[in-house]
C-alpha cells in the first residue's frame, strides 16, 4: 500500500441529513434538524484504489456516491474531487447508477444510450465523429458492440449493466463509481462483470457500493463499511467490531476459504 499516491476523492467530516418530503405535515426539506443519513464521514480515495463499500440498505451508500458526484451537497463538511469542486470536476468521474431503475420501454438504442455519456461534452451540437468513436470503443471494451442497434430494454440485466458501464466509460473518466452493480444479474454475468472490472482497474480508480458482502469482498482491493458512519482503515481489513457497529447486530462471518480475508483474525 503506497501512501504517496494522489488523493482523487476526499471527504472531510461530511454530514447529510435525510430529505423528508413524504411527511404527513408536508415537507421540511433537508436541514440539520432531520435524521442524519451520513454522519461525520471522512474518506480518502487514492489513485488506482479499487474500493468496495458495503453496508445495509438505507445505510447511505447511494447518498455517498451522490455527494461525490455533486448531486447532493452536504449540510456540513468538505468534499473534494481531484482537489476541486465536485460539480466542476464531474468530467473526471464516470457514474453507473443502479441499473434496474430505468424505463425499460424507453425507445432508445444501445449506441444512443452510450453516446449520452458524451452529451455534455459539446452542448447544443450533434455528436462528433470522435464521440461516436469513443462510444464504439467503450462498447467494444464491455463486449457489447454487436448489440449497438438493439433497444435497451431488450437486453438481459447483465447486458444492460455492461451498456451502462460503457456509457460511463465513453466520457473517458478517471474514476468509476458503481451503485449496486451486481444486483439483479445472474451468477454467470456477475463473474464476467468482475472480470471486466479487473481489466478496468488497471487504468482507473473504481469505487463500488453493494449490500452483498461476500461477492464484493472477493474482488476489491480495499473495503469500507457504511451505515451512516463510515468504517475504513484504507485496507482490506475490517474488524468484527466495525461490522457489528455498522450493521448494528453481531455478524457471523466466515472468512476461511475466501482468497482475501475481510475480517482480521481474532
Amino acid at each position: 500500500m503506497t501512501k504517496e499516491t494522489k488523493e482523487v476523492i476526499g471527504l472531510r467530516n461530511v454530514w447529510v441529513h435525510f430529505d423528508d418530503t413524504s411527511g404527513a405535515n408536508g415537507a421540511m426539506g433537508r436541514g440539520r434538524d432531520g435524521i442524519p443519513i451520513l454522519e461525520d464521514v471522512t474518506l480518502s480515495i487514492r489513485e488506482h484504489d479499487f474500493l468496495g463499500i458495503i453496508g445495509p440498505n438505507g445505510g447511505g451508500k447511494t447518498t455517498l456516491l451522490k455527494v461525490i458526484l455533486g448531486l447532493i451537497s452536504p449540510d456540513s463538511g468538505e468534499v473534494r474531487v481531484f482537489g476541486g469542486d465536485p460539480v466542476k470536476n464531474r468530467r473526471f468521474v464516470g457514474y453507473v447508477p443502479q441499473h434496474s431503475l430505468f424505463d425499460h420501454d424507453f425507445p432508445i438504442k444501445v449506441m444512443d444510450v452510450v453516446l449520452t455519456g458524451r452529451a455534455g461534452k459539446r452542448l447544443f451540437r450533434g455528436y462528433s465523429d470522435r464521440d461516436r468513436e469513443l462510444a464504439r470503443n467503450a462498447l467494444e471494451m464491455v463486449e457489447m458492440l454487436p448489440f449497438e442497434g438493439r433497444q435497451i430494454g431488450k437486453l438481459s440485466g447483465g447486458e444492460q449493466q455492461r451498456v451502462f458501464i460503457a456509457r460511463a466509460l465513453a466520457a473517458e473518466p478517471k474514476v468509476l463509481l458503481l451503485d449496486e452493480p451486481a444486483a439483479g444479474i445472474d451468477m454467470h454475468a456477475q463473474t464476467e462483470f468482475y472480470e471486466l472490472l479487473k481489466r478496468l482497474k488497471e487504468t482507473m480508480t473504481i469505487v463500488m457500493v453493494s449490500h452483498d458482502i461476500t461477492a464484493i469482498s472477493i474482488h476489491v482491493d480495499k473495503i469500507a463499511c457504511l451505515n451512516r458512519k463510515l468504517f475504513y482503515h484504507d485496507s482490506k481489513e475490517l474488524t468484527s467490531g466495525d461490522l457489528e457497529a455498522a450493521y448494528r447486530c453481531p455478524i457471523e462471518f466466515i472468512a476461511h476459504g475466501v482468497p482475501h480475508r475481510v475480517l482480521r483474525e481474532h
Partner: protein
Amino acid sequence: MIEILQYEFMTNALAAALLSAIACGIVGVYVVVKRIVFISGGISHASFGGIGLGYFLGISPVLCVIPFGIVSALIIGEVSRRKTISEDTAIGILWAMGMALGIILISLTAGYAPDLFSYLFGNILTVPRSDLVIMLVLDAVIIATVCLLYKEFLAITFDEEFAEVAGVPAHKLYLVLLCLIALTVVILIRVVGIILVIALLTIPAALSRRFTDDLRKMMAISVILSALFSTTGIYLSYLFDLPSGSTIVLVAGIAFVVSSLIPSGTGLKVLR
C-alpha cells in the same frame, strides 16, 4: 368530399389540423416517453387563466395563453425540483388555480363571452387566419428548438440524473421542454380546446411507439397519425354536425383502443 374545400373555414380548419399535428406529434413524443402526461395536463388547464386574462384585457386570448402557459410550466418545473411539496400536489393546485382565475377574470369582463366554449373544447371550424399565423410561428419555434437540442433532450428524457452528471444542464433543459409543452397547448387550444389537449399530446405519440423503437421515427409517425385523426375528425364532424374537437379526440381514442387489441409483435414494427 372535395366540394367542402371551397369553404374558407374548411381550408383554414385543415391548415390548423396540419399545423397542430406538427407540434403535438413532436412534443407529444417527449410527453409520453418522459411520462409527464399529468404535468402537461396541469400546464394546459392552468393556461385557462391566460384565456380569462385575454378577455379581461380585451386582447387575443390565444396570445395571452403564451406567457401564462410558460409561467405555469416554469412554476411546475421549479416546484418539482425543490421538493418542498410533492410534484403531483403542486400540479393539482396550479391546475385548479389557473382555471379558477380564468373563470373569475371572464366573469369580471363586461358582456357575454361568446366563444368561451370553443376555448375549452375547441372548434377547429372557426379558426381565424390570424391564429394560423400564430400556430405557424410556434411550430417553427418548436421545430428549431428540438433540432438544436435533440441530443440533450434525448439524454435528459432517458436519464435526467445521469445527463446532469455527464455535464448537460438537465434541469434548465427540462424547463425548456416544459415551455415547449406550453407552446403546444397554445397551438392545440383552437383544435381540441384546453380540456382535451392532453388527448392529442398522448394518443398519437403512444400509438407511434408501437411502430418503432426510434425517437425520431416516433415523431414522424406521430405527426402523421395526428394529422390523420384531426382531418378524419373534421370530416366526420362536418358530415354528422358534431362538435369538431370532441370528434377528433374520439377518433384518436378509438384508433388507440383498436390498435391495442392487436397483439404486439404482429408485424407492426415495420419501420425499425
